[in-house]
């Protein structure tokens, strides 16, 4: 990474402009230090850390089940995928079997959050390009998905719905019908969105050939997710290393070869359709009643009614709530395909009930590193396009 050349600055050839940290189009508190030669960007350097909250340090003082709440807050637009990566990592280390029904419900929610996250991206990205109205529609429809999350988990934003061993609660009554309504309405939503941007020359001109990332650069800079798939490599952990029963679902990996903002745009739009296909299939597989968490009482809380009549259940409840459960000594890495790329957790356990090291491999942190390449020799207006097109989430970047 090259910083601004002081001699160029002294000559008055270039000037430094700060974009952010308080700027609506940076999607949070990102600051980009732009070195400009007129309208042309000589160098763009992201300056991060404004949202640093020390999650990794916090997690070391929490039990494994409590750490779940920290994962929600990393990428707060897709909390379920963070939950999923974390609980899968712990389950892998403990060699814990999760009931099939719980795995399907996890898939359902992971895909619902992917759609919700892509809707926010679509609205904000197109708003950055100057089309205001789409934002209102996508946020309205995202609320429908958040209502579903609220119905199951009790909260909209930081659900912590997935727990080590399964889920926090079973699905509420009538949940299937609500999701069916969503599936029924979905084509109408997408059609109304597409009327606004598809074939729109203003949007196409702002995207085509802008912020190009070649495949080689994407691999070198560890970009993952739609940013890598937009450069032509069909890498998707759901297909390549299926977790949580993803191998039983039929969907395709969306790729484009151009590597520009337009390619990444359409990869995400296509992904929304694929996610809806998975949601439909998951709904078929989820039976209305059945186990939603492991029967291993050393890990999962006993049902409420058991606690009042069963001494053993009371002891388990007390032990789990006060001390947590021990996790065998060792280390583990588990990645899942989040809306922004590979969301992974690397955990080191010393055999106790709290993680010794809790490392989050967050996709936006790596994707944002490509910004200097995307902006090089472009115009200032295209910096905004570049930031929107890599779909960063500052909670994810700054941890």
């Amino acid at each position, binding site marked *: 990474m090259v910083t601004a050349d002081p001699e160029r600055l002294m000559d008055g050839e270039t000037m430094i402009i700060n974009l952010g940290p308080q700027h609506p189009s940076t999607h949070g508190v990102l600051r980009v230090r732009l070195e400009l030669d007129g309208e042309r960007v000589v160098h763009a350097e992201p300056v991060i850390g404004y949202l640093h909250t020390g999650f990794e340090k916090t997690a070391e003082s929490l039990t494994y089940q409590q750490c779940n709440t920290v994962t929600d807050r990393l990428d707060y637009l897709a909390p379920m995928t963070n939950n999923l990566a974390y609980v899968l990592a712990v389950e*892998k280390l403990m060699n814990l079997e999760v009931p099939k029904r719980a795995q399907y419900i996890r898939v359902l929610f992971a895909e619902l959050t992917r759609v919700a996250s892509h809707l926010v991206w679509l609205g904000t990205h197109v708003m950055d390009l100057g089309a205001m109205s789409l934002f209102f529609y996508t946020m309205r429809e995202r609320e429908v998905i958040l209502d579903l999350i609220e119905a199951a988990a009790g909260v909209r934003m930081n659900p912590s719905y997935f727990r080590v061993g399964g889920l926090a609660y079973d699905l509420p009554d009538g949940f299937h019908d609500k999701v069916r309504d969503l599936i029924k309405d979905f084509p109408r939503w997408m059609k109304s969105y597409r009327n606004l941007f598809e074939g729109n020359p203003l949007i196409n001109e702002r995207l085509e050939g802008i912020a190009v990332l070649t495949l080689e650069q994407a691999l070198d800079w560890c970009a993952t997710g739609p940013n890598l798939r937009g450069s032509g490599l069909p890498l998707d952990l759901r297909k390549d290393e299926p977790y949580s029963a993803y191998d039983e679902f039929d969907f395709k990996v969306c790729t484009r070869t151009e590597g520009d903002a337009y390619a990444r745009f359409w990869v995400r739009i296509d992904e929304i359709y694929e996610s809806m296909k998975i949601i439909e299939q998951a709904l078929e597989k989820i039976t209305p009643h059945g186990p939603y968490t492991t029967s291993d009482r050393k890990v999962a809380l006993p049902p409420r009614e058991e606690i009042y009549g069963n001494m053993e259940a009371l002891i388990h409840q007390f032990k789990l709530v006060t001390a947590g459960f021990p996790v065998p000594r060792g280390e583990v890495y588990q990645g899942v395909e989040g809306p922004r790329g590979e969301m992974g957790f690397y955990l080191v356990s010393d055999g106790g009930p709290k993680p010794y090291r809790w490392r989050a491999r967050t996709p936006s*942190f790596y994707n944002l*590193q490509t910004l200097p390449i995307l902006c090089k020799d472009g115009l200032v207006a295209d910096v905004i396009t570049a930031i929107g097109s890599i779909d960063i989430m500052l909670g994810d970047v700054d*941890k």
Partner: protein
Amino acid sequence: MNQNDPEILDRLEARFPGTLERITTVDQPTILVPKDMILALFEHVKNTEGYTMCLDVAAVDNFPAQPRFELVYHLYHPTKYARLRVKSRVGVDEEMPSATGLWPGTNWPEREAFDLFGVRFTGHPQMTRIYLPEDWEGHPLRKDYPLTGNRVD
């Protein structure tokens, strides 16, 4: 399901005899490498074995063990979908060779390791703090850095 390639450890041991140490883990092939060997190993693994992505660089503080820090690199083969974990140990006053020459994307995670653990990297283009302010004292993710408490000056 699991497409990892455990035989890579045999090939690496044949290529770098007597320097690598295998570590048994539940998920992926793992080796421990002396830190002066790590760049040679990375170059071999990237160019010959095809592990062209470095997904993550994480530091672990094993205080009070010596050497204190352990750096964990997660490598990925993007067409065979195989994973490899390379670990290396470094002491408090020592420097770690930077992998930015091979993977420019390790730039930020190495800065993060410097910021939060105080591990320095030789050959890194910009060895400065990334999250915390420049004048911050201490490295928060070290085990001897308290989580809470009032500061007494």
